[in-house]
């Protein structure tokens, strides 16, 4: 024990400059990541802003059962889950398909042009994306409605009709991230041995067969990793865009856990209640990612850890 202790201290002494360099970063993680993680304990308290964490009373699972019993529970959970699921169903395959299409282009400058243009929306802020969506879908001057009325369809007031919210959200999301998502698949595609294609051509495989039997298996590991990560993020839908696109009229389908937490927690000051809700979803997300990972390790052999 003594021995180990002293060797630890000598190591610390040896690495003192490295540890010094690490210090600001470590402080950041302690203050802004780990203190909040311990701050989750307020979910089990009647947190009072004036009493602070140490003086507030413990109430156990009161706020959890309060959440499970509120009429908002099911709608909010369902909206979050469905929005995440639709995002996964449409947002996950889209970049794979685009990458395969780009890969089939033989002219390299065209390839680069398509890539460059499709990355662009990724760097536009959510406020601008929401702004574009609202403007384009506006019932009076919006392009989409002008188009609809030009072909003789009734104008739709997209933004106040709850039934349209999910489509709008998912469409803008695919638009924003489809190009950016292709990067990893295109990189994986370049790693495939071109000799495989030659051999396949010799055997008379057409392009569809080549894609099915060489290209897709070639990028399968990348596909699996991204899928696991995406499944883990099902409940973590970006707060910003939902907050910006939703209106009280569309809460029925648009109110998700993070916007609900913001509303009841920050604007109404129910800190403990909101934290309990957040913790509940955090744990479910965590279970999702662990389950997806172990499932994939068993089935396909690739996993993130």
């Amino acid at each position: 024990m003594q021995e180990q202790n002293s060797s630890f201290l000598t190591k610390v002494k040896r690495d003192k400059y490295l540890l010094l360099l690490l210090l600001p970063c470590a402080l950041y993680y302690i203050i802004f990541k780990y203190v909040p993680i311990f701050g989750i304990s307020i979910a089990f308290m009647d947190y009072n802003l004036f009493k602070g964490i140490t003086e507030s009373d413990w109430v156990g699972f009161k706020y959890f059962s309060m959440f499970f019993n509120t009429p908002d529970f099911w709608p909010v959970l369902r909206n979050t889950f469905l929005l995440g699921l639709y995002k996964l169903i449409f947002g996950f395959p889209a970049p794979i398909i685009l990458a395969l299409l780009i890969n089939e282009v033989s002219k390299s400058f065209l390839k680069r042009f398509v890539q460059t243009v499709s990355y662009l929306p990724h760097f536009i802020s959510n406020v601008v994306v929401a702004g574009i969506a609202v403007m384009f879908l506006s019932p009076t001057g919006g392009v989409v409605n002008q188009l609809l009325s030009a072909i003789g369809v009734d104008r739709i007031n997209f933004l106040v009709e709850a039934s349209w919210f999910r489509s709008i959200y998912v469409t803008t999301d695919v638009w924003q991230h489809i190009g950016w998502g292709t990067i990893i698949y295109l990189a994986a595609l370049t790693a495939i041995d071109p000799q495989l294609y030659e051999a396949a051509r010799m055997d008379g495989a057409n392009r569809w067969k080549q894609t099915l039997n060489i290209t897709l298996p070639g990028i399968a590991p990348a596909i699996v990793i991204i899928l696991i990560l995406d499944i883990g993020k099902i409940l973590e839908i970006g707060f910003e865009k939902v907050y910006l696109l939703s209106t009280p009229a569309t809460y029925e389908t648009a109110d998700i856990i993070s916007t609900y937490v913001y509303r009841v927690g920050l604007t109404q000051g129910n800190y403990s209640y909101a934290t309990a809700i957040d913790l509940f979803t955090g744990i479910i997300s965590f279970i999702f990612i662990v389950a997806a990972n172990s499932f994939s390790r068993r089935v396909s052999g690739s996993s993130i850890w």
Partner: protein
Amino acid sequence: MKPKWNWFDALNALILSGIVMACLYPFVYMLAVSLSDSASIASGEVWLWPRGFNLDMYQYVFEDGRVLKGYKNTLIYVISGTAISMIVTALGAYALSKTKMVMGKPILMLIVFTMFFNGGMIPTFLVVKELGFVNTIWGMVLPGAVGTWNLLIMRTFFMGMPQELEESGKIDGLSEIGIFFRIVLPLSKPVLATIGLYYAVGMWNNFMGPLLYLRDADMQPLQVILRNIVLSGQLTGTDGPVVGDIVVVEDGLKFATIMVSTLPILLVYPFIQKYFVKGALIGSVKG
């Protein structure tokens, strides 16, 4: 043998042109509308080119004053935030790239853990509040100072540095700090540019940060002002949710505001795009 141009290529070209159009058209359209006169916009004549070209809308945007103030605030946050983020991230990533550093591995695992599990909105808000950072520039630049993904990208890059270079530095009597500043950093320009751009764009686009941590109207960055003008339709008047007296703002003006706040990214984008891609690629290499 030249591959033949067949129906597949034609279909593919069609789909890809569709995607290119979908990605570019909104910007072309917004630019056209913002440069047209209101009569042409109202009659729906503007599709691709401005009709009745004028710069009035841009003049209004800048006369409003809030946009300029938002610009100033955003620039302050972007510059100081990126600087702080870069320093903290680079130092931390370098230390963590030394795999034999004492406690290196557990510390790294604790950091990666925060990618999967975190305190959430309210506890983080309370910490920022307790520190007295609400309504200060610190509330904007510190809570998101280190992006774990960026940290890992930098770490991967530093790990790829040739060991011999650092050893030669050590023989010349440099400490770890000296090696970092005089040998490693000058050789790391590509990764520094990449991560710096990630941080800068992230800060430029940040909306949730000011929503949570800034109450003072004078401190709001461009994104918040943009939202007030475009989504809430306020030109002048109070901030925050308006229920009753909504001022009607013309579409041309909204588009002009969007263009003004997005133009910097649109203009530099072709030049910085390759760095972004490089970063995404380093990040996807399994560490």
